[in-house]
Structure formats: structure tokens, C-alpha cells
């Protein structure tokens, strides 16, 4: 079964060092991430799970001084082979990377805006302006995150008024909205 699935991402020989540190936090990581599968990382706290995740969309690069070695390969949008995301240097390339590799944090992080705008935010900054398309994709994302039924009547409320669990599902919807194509 799995032999028909390609790798969406491949981490190869990854070393990662935080700013002003001598020892790398990640040493020689190899990890394939398969298409249409859930990959779970488990381990004791402080072993580098988050550090690895934050390398996959290069959120680390918001803080100057981080060093990477090795490769992280991401499948091209048209599926024809891979590109090494660690070779990217320009800020613009990183922004485009983050539009393709989403991320949800341990704690819910609703933006200071309405529920609808939270989900639509990533789409809007990508330049989607058509209201009907936005509506459809927001609804689909909220359905996918199992939040639609709870919030469909209050889409214009401030997202910070939701409960913790709802907030986290909202953040999932926000990321999922970007990946629907």
C-alpha cells in the first residue's frame, strides 16, 4: 500500500543550531513524510520535536542567527521532483514556502479579528478577493476542522471569545483553508 505513496517532504542529514549556541539542537535527522499520511513525532520534552517542525517551514528564520546543515526536500507543486527548501535565502521564498507548509501551534493562537476573517486571512493575503470563493473555502475549512456547526451563526464574532478547544480547531481550519486546491 505505502509503496504507491510518494514522499511529500524528505528530511536528509539535517543539523540545526540555534543562535549563539555551539551544540546543534538537531543532529543528523533523516525523515520521510509521506503523501496523504499522518506522521507523528513522539518523544520526551526537550528532545527537539518542535525544533524539527519549525525547521520544516523555516519559522526559525524569523530570528536571525540560526544555522542549518543538510537538506529538506519539498515536492514541487506540479509533482515533478523535489526542491531543497534550505537552499532558499530570500524572504519572499520563505513566505511562499509557509503558504505551502502550514503550522499549528501547541497553544491556540486566534488572530485579533472575527472567526470568518481568521480563516479567510491566509486566503486574502494570497490575493483571493472573490467573496463567493472565500465563503466556500471558509465553510469547507471549518467543516474539515469540525467547527462549522458550532460557529456558522456567529462568524462575525471575535475569535478570542471561543473556548480553548474551539480556538484550536479554528487554527486548524485556518491552515487547512490554505491547502485546499
Amino acid at each position, binding site marked *: 500500500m505505502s509503496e504507491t505513496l510518494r514522499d511529500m517532504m524528505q528530511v536528509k542529514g539535517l543539523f540545526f543550531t540555534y543562535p549563539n549556541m555551539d551544540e546543534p539542537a538537531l543532529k543528523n535527522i533523516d525523515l520521510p513524510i509521506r503523501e496523504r499520511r499522518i506522521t507523528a513525532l513522539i518523544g520526551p520534552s526537550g528532545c527537539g520535536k518542535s525544533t524539527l517542525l519549525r525547521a520544516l517551514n523555516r519559522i526559525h528564520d524569523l530570528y536571525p542567527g540560526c544555522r542549518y546543515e543538510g537538506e529538506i526536500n519539498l515536492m514541487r507543486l506540479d509533482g515533478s521532483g523535489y526542491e531543497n527548501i534550505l537552499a532558499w535565502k530570500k524572504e519572499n521564498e520563505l513566505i511562499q514556502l*509557509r503558504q505551502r507548509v502550514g503550522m499549528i*501551534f501547541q497553544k491556540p493562537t486566534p*488572530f*485579533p479579528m472575527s472567526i470568518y476573517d481568521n480563516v479567510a486571512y491566509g486566503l486574502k493575503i*494570497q490575493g483571493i478577493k472573490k467573496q463567493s470563493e472565500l465563503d466556500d473555502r471558509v465553510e469547507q475549512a471549518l467543516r474539515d476542522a469540525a467547527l462549522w456547526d458550532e460557529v456558522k451563526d456567529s462568524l462575525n464574532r471575535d475569535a478570542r471569545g471561543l473556548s480553548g478547544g474551539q480556538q484550536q480547531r479554528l487554527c486548524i481550519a485556518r491552515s487547512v483553508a490554505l491547502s485546499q486546491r
Partner: protein
Amino acid sequence: MEKIFARISQVSATTVLLLLLATVAVLYWSAKPALEAFGAHFLIDPRWGVEVPVDGEGNEVKQTLNASGQADGVRRVDAGVDEISMDDEEVPLEDEMNGETISMDEGEELILGMDEDELETREVYGGLVPILGTLFSTTLAMLVAVPIAMGIAVFLSELAPQWLGKPVGVAIELLAAIPSIIYGMWGLFFFGPFIASIFGGSSVSLLVAGLVLAIMIIPFMAALSRDAINITPDVLKESAYAVGATKFEVIKDIVFPYAKAGILGSMIISLGRALGETMAVAFVIGGIFSLPEKLTDPTVSIPVVLANNFAESSGLSLSALYYLAFVLFLVSFLVIFAAKHYFLRRVKL
């Protein structure tokens, strides 16, 4: 002992209330003669210390106002040099307003009684020039200071690398602590001539006053706004980056909305400072009772009138100064109250 301590501390707290009440009472009481003589018309009357002929009822004689308004409607107070700066079109308008409001005033008899030996004329004081001067200089200062202070705040908290952001931030905070008289001196000797060489006009003017005021409140506003911006959690910003937002979008859509209450609060508190600032303005506004026609004209603001004229005033002119002080006090009270109210409402949300 326990009781005594609690009582003393309560009395101390009440001192604050008493001081505030006493301030309001003393200002009102000192301003009362002017309040009764000029009423609310004071606020829109541009004349200061003008002798105006009155008829038997104590009303101003309308026909002669034209002449007197042109002759010494505007007086340079510090030097005593007369200046004519009122437009011809403005005078008839003045005429109408004076005729209406002054004659309705109830307090006329009182003034009349005091000036019995010179029934023919009375002194008229109006606060329009300093009130407008305060409004204009403060507005100008805010227009200049807000974008620059926001630029500094964003630069310090989001753009600058740590090795640069930290020392510059400390420098900004220290600058906010520098006495305002220093800003005034610098404005008089260096900045005023610099501005005059670019925009023309005098080296003391409304423009220079507004800009010096702006430069004075910039560090204050920037430091407070930076603190407000800094409370935005990193993880919130990261999740915005994680959906592909640019730095600009993160600041515009996440940081500013999140820190809105704090940023607006810093602006309003800075506004309050600018409204009541004396020394930074006193050097550079000119201290002349004339309505500015251009930005580069000298004029005067409420605190500067108080600073320049207080010691030499007595009787009705002193009372008119207290009227101005009272107005300034009420306005800044309202501004701060609005700021606090806004803060509280937002914090509870």
C-alpha cells in the same frame, strides 16, 4: 496603632481628592470675574486687553468697534507693539457676534460697578487666539509625531536586530526624560532658524512650535507604543507567518490590532502632554496675540500666555488668564479621562 495607621493612610489618599477639588475651586473662583464679564463668548473672541467703548447699559458700542478692532484689536503683549493682522472681512463678523452675546450677558452690572469712574470704556479679553494656537500647534505636533513615533516603535520592536534595538530603545526612553526646556532652547537657537531657512517666515512660528512639540513627544509616544507592541505574543506572530504573511501584513493585521488599546492610549497620553506643554513651546511660538494666517506666522498658546503674562497681570486680566487656565485644565482632564475610559473598556474585553 493599627487604626491610626489605617486612618492616616486614608487621609493621605483623600489629600489627592482635596487637592484636585481645591485646584478646580481656586481656578473657578479666580476666573469668575472674567467668566461673568465675558461668558462663553470669551472662547471665540480674538481680542486681548482691548479698550472698548460702552454705552450706558454696559454694552459695547457697535459703531466704534470697527475702528478700535482695527486699531488695536491685536496687541503684541510682550513688547507692547501694536500690530494689525485682522482681515477686513473678519471685522463685520466680529461685530455681529459681539452685539449678540455680550448684550445678553447677565454679569455686566458687576463690571460696570467696578469701573464706575471710567464708564466710557471697558477692557475686553478673549481667548480665541491662544485657544486656536494650542489647538493648531497640538494638531500639527500629533500629525508629525504619530507616524514617526509609530515608525520608531515598529522599528524597535519588529525590525531592528537585538544589538541595535536595545540600546536605541534605552536612548529613546532617556530622551523622553529630558526636561522640556531643553527642547525649547534647541528649537529657539537651532531648529527655528533651520525651519525658517526652508519654509521662510520667522524663526518663531506656529510651524516651529508644532514641530518642536512633535519632537518632544516622539520619544515618549514611541517608548509607550513599543511597550504595547512588545506584549504581542511571539507565537501569535509566528502563526501569522505560518500562513504566509509578510512582515508588513503581520504588523498591520496582527500586531496593531492586538496592541491597539495600548497604542491609542500612548497617543492620547502624549496628546495630553502636548496640550499642557509650556517650555518647549514658549521659546518658539512667538508669544504674539494674533491669529496666524500661515503656518509660518507667530502666535501664542494657552500655557505660553500663562507663562508670559501672569506675573504682570492683575484684576480682570489676571482673571482672564485664570479663565484660560481653567479651560486648559478641563480639556486635559477630559482627554486623560477619555484615555482611561478607553483603556478600561478594552482591558475588560
